[in-house]
């Protein structure tokens, strides 16, 4: 293989090496006095924008009831087959509720299809990105972990209303 020719040979100052070092150090020095852009996670938490797709959660209305009517569309659309919904009957107006709602968070790929297909805006992508499990069993999220009060989800619901 022929050796690739340089486009430009080093100039004298570059060849001298020291001035270039000084230049580099100068840049470092300059940044020391500029405002910081690095977020010091985990001391400082990132607050994502409304468009962020964190873990899917179930919307819990102010009266404590979940919005979900257990229609099963999220389960159907889930490309990872990670959602399981078991419907049961309720006397409330909505007729049905999920007796069991489970997401296998190891399988979830955060595609947001479940949110997109939901006819009730009952499952939305939250801002929660901190998903650490000590073991795989902890990664199965039931209703206890999935239900989030609507107050915490206003941003996302607003975003969906504007852009969905």
């Amino acid at each position, binding site marked *: 293989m022929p050796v690739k020719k340089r486009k430009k040979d080093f100039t004298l100052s570059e060849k001298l090496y020291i001035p270039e070092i000084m230049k580099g150090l100068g840049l470092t020095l300059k940044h020391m006095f500029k405002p910081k852009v690095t977020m010091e996670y985990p001391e400082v938490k990132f607050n994502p924008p409304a468009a962020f797709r964190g873990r899917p959660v179930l919307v819990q209305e102010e009266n404590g009831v979940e919005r979900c*009517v257990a229609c099963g569309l999220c*389960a159907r659309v889930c490309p990872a087959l990670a*959602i399981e919904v078991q419907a049961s009957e309720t006397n409330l107006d909505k007729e049905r509720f999920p007796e069991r709602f489970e997401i296998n968070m190891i399988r979830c790929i955060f595609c947001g299809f479940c949110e997109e297909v939901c006819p009730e805006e009952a499952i939305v992508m939250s801002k929660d990105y901190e998903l650490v499990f000590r073991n795989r069993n902890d990664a199965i999220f039931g209703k206890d972990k999935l239900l989030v009060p609507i107050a915490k989800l206003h941003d996302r619901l607003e975003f969906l209303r504007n852009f969905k």
Partner: protein
Amino acid sequence: MAKTAKITVDGKTYEVDATKNLLEVCLSLKLDLPYFCWHPAMGSVGACRQCAVKKFRDENDKVGKLFMACMEPIVDGMIISIQDAEAKEFRKGVIEWLMTNHPHDCPVCDEGGECHLQDMTVMTGHDYRRYRFKKRTYKNQYLGPFINHEMNRCIQCYRCVRYYRDYAGGKDFDVFGVHNTVYFGRHEDGVLENEFSGNLVEVCPTGVFTDKTLGKHYTRKWDQTYAPSICVHCSVGCNTIAAERYGLLRRVQSRYNGEVNGYFLCDRGRFGYEFVNSPKRIRKPLRKNKETRQFEELGSEDALKYIRKLLSDSKRIIGIGSARASLESNFTLLSFVEKQNFYWGESDRNIQLIQKQYDILRNGPARTPSLRDIEKCDVVIVLGEDLTNTAPMIALALRQSVRQEPVQSATPYRIPHWQDQAVRELTQDEKGPIFIATPLATRLDEISETYRAAADDIARLGFMVANSFSDRSPLVSGATDEQKKLSGKISEALKKAKRPLIIAGPSLQSEAVIEAAANIANAMITSGKTCELCFTVPEVNSMGMAMMDITHQGIESAFEALKNKPADTLIILENDLYRRAEEQAVDSFLGKFKNVIVLDYLENSTSLKADAVLSSGSFAESDGTFVNNEGRAQRFYQVYDAGENIKESWRWLRDIMLNSGLHEFGKWKILSDFTNALSKAMPVFDGINNITPPPGFRIAGEKIPREPFRYSGRTAMFANKSVHEPKPPEDIDSPLSFTMEGYRGKPPSSIIPFFWSPGWNSQQAINKYQIEIGGALHGGDPGKRLIEPKSGKTPAFFTKIPQAFSPRNGDWFVVPVYHIFGSEELSVNAPGINELTPKPYVMISSEDAGSLGLTSEKQIELEAQGKTYSLPAKLNLGLPKGLIGIPKGLPGMPEIKTGSWVRLKMG
């Protein structure tokens, strides 16, 4: 195809059946044309305006006119267009109108995902609501434990009312109101009276009528695991689709079989399935603790070890088979205990009757018709059977056969027979001749000429009719005027008939009735006419048992045999002996054995007496073959794998045999090994192995999936138990797999797990599986007829005519009363059926009650077989004097022998 014509659809020319309408033809050609009000079983009315197509005068006509395809007869050279822009726009517009009032509640609607309205909306392309006003709303009704009513979803296609009133003959359901507020329902809340109301769920194109039992444990269509199954609740053997999720049977739907049940099922068949989920299910093998007399649960290995211990020191083993167990299970038990020790677990009397029926069909010239054939018969005589309660789907078929003759009157007016409304206007209330002779009033009385009498008189009437066709059938002396008049009328109708049919059965426990029926058929055939002969039998596999090469001895014979030659071990296969014989007799019989081993799936009086119980699979957890009353062998497959503790009875028995050192049975590994061995041992079953494809059958190297391809939640379903995804169970017995992977096209007709076609998510997808709409499935209708008539031989006639029935003073003759909900052993364990099951009672004719001074619901004491029972009385108008009706098989009802005499005392 009777008459063919060439038509051009969107520039392509097809040869089609000219007797059909354009919509049927287009669907038969597998073209997608939306429709609502038309149903293949019910003909056209042109109410919904959805199937509009463009019709052109000739090739030069480029404009064309819109026509409703369902109302257009086929004309040779017809040119039409489905894809025409104006036609498409029109169809879209129609959907838009329908949707102005349809609620957007698909997420909570049970029909969602299998909704014809959803499919048609997508097909027409309507996707945006422009109508800004309020939707019309209704109050819903309570329609009983089976059907949920949600009237807001209605699109006024009128299918429900046409099905319920016109097709099924229901009275308590109609359409009310006018204009935009048309209402389909009852005049007030209440249980739907018709026994076929469950079909409303499938007939309704949207979610007005939904399956309440499914709603209790709701799962979407795409989330269920399906298997082709056979209904176990009577002898007709309707084809069903059973569905499961999480080891819970969710529902039963009709599986189209053009020769058997077609599109429909009766309510017992559709809603009786819940016995599978009953708390009385035996889910693990049980062993009775010798000291505490309590059952202890065992693992399957331990159970087999325990049974081996029981069997090791037994000298003689008696086996009792069952007509609700599959051929394979009975055959395996037979192979184990050998012929001389095998008893058919049925009363001796019933066996005689069923055997007689089988001999008549096997040796006689009369053909046994399929359900579809019954619909086509034009003159029907029913002797002694209350069909609505003993073989419900035959009753529904008879409601169609009474239309055979009147419909012919439309031909001279050149009205095609599929023009439902026009034909009904023309024929009005005209009915074809049908004669029903029973002791009690039946639901079919409104369409028939009736004769109320005891079994012997019914038989005498039959013999009189037979005699009018052939002298070889004996003359009946001393006939009453009523009998003479009626038999003359019946003979007259039969002489005119194009396709006559005689129906009889064993329910009155009378040989004479069966003989009379056979004599009529034989006499007609010897006099050069045709005649078909249909017998009902008590249970799903009774006919199969009659065909088996066994000693045909029943319970009482087993009791007798034990007296002469003792035995120490008894194996009972899926049978509750207390339903077959008297309590004390069974008690003493069971008491004579050291070990009683029961294989069953529901706890019953017999299983409670057992020393060891093996947990058999019900129809939903087993594979096997049943032979229906027609003699059609049909296979059913397990819906789900219930784990190692629930096995098919034949598999349990095989394991017992291997454990007992009968190593030659080790080669029986999968279902087809058992079926092969059976057909080798008994040539009458030749060919039953081929009624479904072999277990090695693959299409493009793939199995047929039991689950739809969009089955959801696979990685989450059992994640709460173990996060490791379990390996899907394997099915070694069939070409079906338990997963969603496999061949996505249409499977062979006998192993269709569910009906689905792209764009057709509802049951209407059946259209795509049929060669011609309403006809056979691609590849032929499933099942194999095992009984064909013997022609050319002069049939034997029965000559023994019974004496006329004469009432005795103070004594009452017992006739059985069957209930569609209640008389059948398994279905009463389904909560819905149980709710509709009547409480025990005795039925007395109003006339007799008058002379006794008895009123309805009053307790009376009944003395039978040396015992006294106190039961409330029910009065009946039609019941002849001297007869007493005893309901059969009701929970809590003592078993009182049919055909015996009982005494009454006022309570």
